[in-house]
């Protein structure tokens, strides 16, 4: 990526007289980049893109009677008419016998380990595939890349059967831990692939020097490789965290009853059963969005990097 703030080569280009029409090139460049109609298209789309979310946000602060009798845009005429009641009523609203607040905590319980476990496992594996020597290492790396082709839908039915089989009954996996495990399984190929790309490209002199000094693999991994890999791990962690936080399918299949389900499940249930109770839906939807929006706004650079790196998955 080039530096955006680098000066445009106006001076060089503007001096030429080979341009066919009479417009100096300098103004042509300016037209394409600032003065032309293009920027109006951009701002129009940006505005269009923002209006639906703004409508939801404004509505979530309007009294129930207002929401149900008038459009949110009428709020601009009476901006003092705001309340937090919708948020308090949705948090105590019951879905499947559980208050919405418990679904929020379930989402936290699911998403934090759901991001940490696969990245921890994948970091060790990526280190082994990069810096430990064993038979079949390269074949295994190729195989893991190939596994990115498999859509997670291929595994839902057999994995659910496995998790509910007698052998697994004895393990404490029921409910949220089985959601963690499923996310760890589905996230494994891409996580190993991305981390191996990064860890494998660390300078070999550093690793070899530490080996010669007698450092064990665990020491090298914890003291050298992990600190150097922070940017890659941060991008991947944010991406995986948001993916799990926003997930509906995996939780719905593996979570069992409402007791173990995240907010996405509760909201879909509310859409089906209370589809016109917009005082609940607007506030509830905004509560699910708040954490991703904070992550997005504060860590946008890592988020973009994770997105760019993640666009190889099946």
């Amino acid at each position, binding site marked *: 990526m080039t530096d955006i703030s680098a000066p445009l080569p106006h001076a060089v*280009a503007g001096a030429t007289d080979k341009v066919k029409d009479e417009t100096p090139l300098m103004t042509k460049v300016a037209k394409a980049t600032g003065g032309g109609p293009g920027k109006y298209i951009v701002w129009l789309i940006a505005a269009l893109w923002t209006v639906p979310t703004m409508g939801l946000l404004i*509505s979530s602060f309007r009294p129930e009677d207002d929401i149900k009798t008038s*459009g949110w845009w009428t709020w601009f005429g009476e901006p003092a008419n705001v309340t937090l009641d919708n948020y308090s009523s949705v948090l105590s609203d019951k879905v499947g016998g559980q208050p919405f607040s418990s679904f929020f905590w379930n989402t936290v319980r699911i998403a934090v380990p759901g991001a940490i476990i696969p990245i921890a496992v994948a970091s060790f594996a990526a280190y082994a595939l990069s810096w430990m020597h064993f038979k079949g290492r390269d074949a295994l790396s190729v195989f893991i890349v190939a596994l990115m082709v498999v859509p997670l839908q*291929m595994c*839902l039915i057999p*994995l659910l059967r496995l998790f509910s089989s007698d052998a697994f009954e004895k393990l404490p996996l029921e409910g949220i831990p089985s959601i963690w495990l499923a996310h760890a399984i589905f996230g494994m*190929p891409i996580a190993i692939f991305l981390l191996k790309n990064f860890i494998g490209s660390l300078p070999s002199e550093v690793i070899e020097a530490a080996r010669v000094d007698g450092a064990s693999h665990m020491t090298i991994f914890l003291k050298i490789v992990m600190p150097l890999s922070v940017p890659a791990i941060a991008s991947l962690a944010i991406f995986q965290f948001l993916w799990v936080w926003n997930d509906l*399918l995996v939780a719905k299949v593996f979570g069992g009853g409402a007791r173990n389900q995240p907010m996405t499940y509760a909201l879909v249930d509310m859409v089906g059963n209370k589809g016109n109770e917009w005082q609940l839906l607007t506030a509830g939807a905004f509560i699910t969005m708040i954490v991703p929006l904070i992550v997005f706004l504060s860590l946008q650079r890592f988020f973009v990097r994770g997105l760019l790196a993640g666009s190889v998955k099946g």
Partner: protein
Amino acid sequence: MGDIFSSLALVVVGIAIFVAVLGALYWLASQLPEPWRERARTAVFIGPGIILLLGLVIPALLNFRFSFLDRDEEWYGFGNYRDIFTNDNNIKVLANTLWWGILVTGVSTVIGITIARFADRMRGEPFAKALIFLPTAISMVGAGIIWNFVYSPKEYGLLNSMLRLLPGEQETKFFLQDPKLFGIQSNYVPGLNTILIMVVIIWIQAGFATVVISAALKGVPDDLVEAAKIDGATDRQAFYKVVLPYIKGTIITVATTVVIAVLKIFDIIQTMGKGGSFGTSTMANEMYEQAFPQDNEGLGAAWAVLLFVAVAPIVFVNARNQRAMREGR
């Protein structure tokens, strides 16, 4: 507050157990004599990863077998596949998914190129792009609710309210329950409801396309564009003849990534199409509906296999394209 502590406790305990088990195994491995020590340590590093990968590979293989079983788990041969390609409802699902892949991918990519082009070096570029990119971060369930509100038939529905501004008597439209498009109802034509749900995914994916293409645009050397202009090219010609071919690889990456995401569309159909009612179902939605609520695992497994068959070549194209891009630079 109890919830916070129990959540944190669960998280901390889970991770502590993981670290403790791995540490103990590594310590045990270190007690072994050579050459076993080094092998055992390698196994501790790679073992957990392999176990999780087996949790992917074995179920995926078993899924092929399930796809040949019927509802009662009797051998059904290619029956499920035959049902998918002959049953009217299922043909609708296949056609819908195809339209999803074409329309959403095409429109999202074109919007991404347009914004990236016109926003480049514009005043306020980061802010405008952030606004367009924002929907990428939120869940599809959240996005579905945002747009259910826009499409609502009630007086607070934005789209209906805008239509009422048009001259003449406007009847209230139940957009998400309208399976027709311009009066046509066909298995091969997506309904108005499907088109309007596609708009939501375009709303999400266009931001992704913009950010990726914009990053690539900033990598196009200035002198390349300047040279074209010195040769008499207009801005438009320089963009289409020089800049676009230069970032072709990135555009393929964007398009393939969007296709893959779109083929697996599920949450949004659950939130906006009531789980695929009114002719809105897609392959991934149907896979879930058949396998779990309908308890027909064989048919669900067959949908999953078809999804795999649809996604695999696109992942392959994407991977080859990415390699070409790496080697080309």
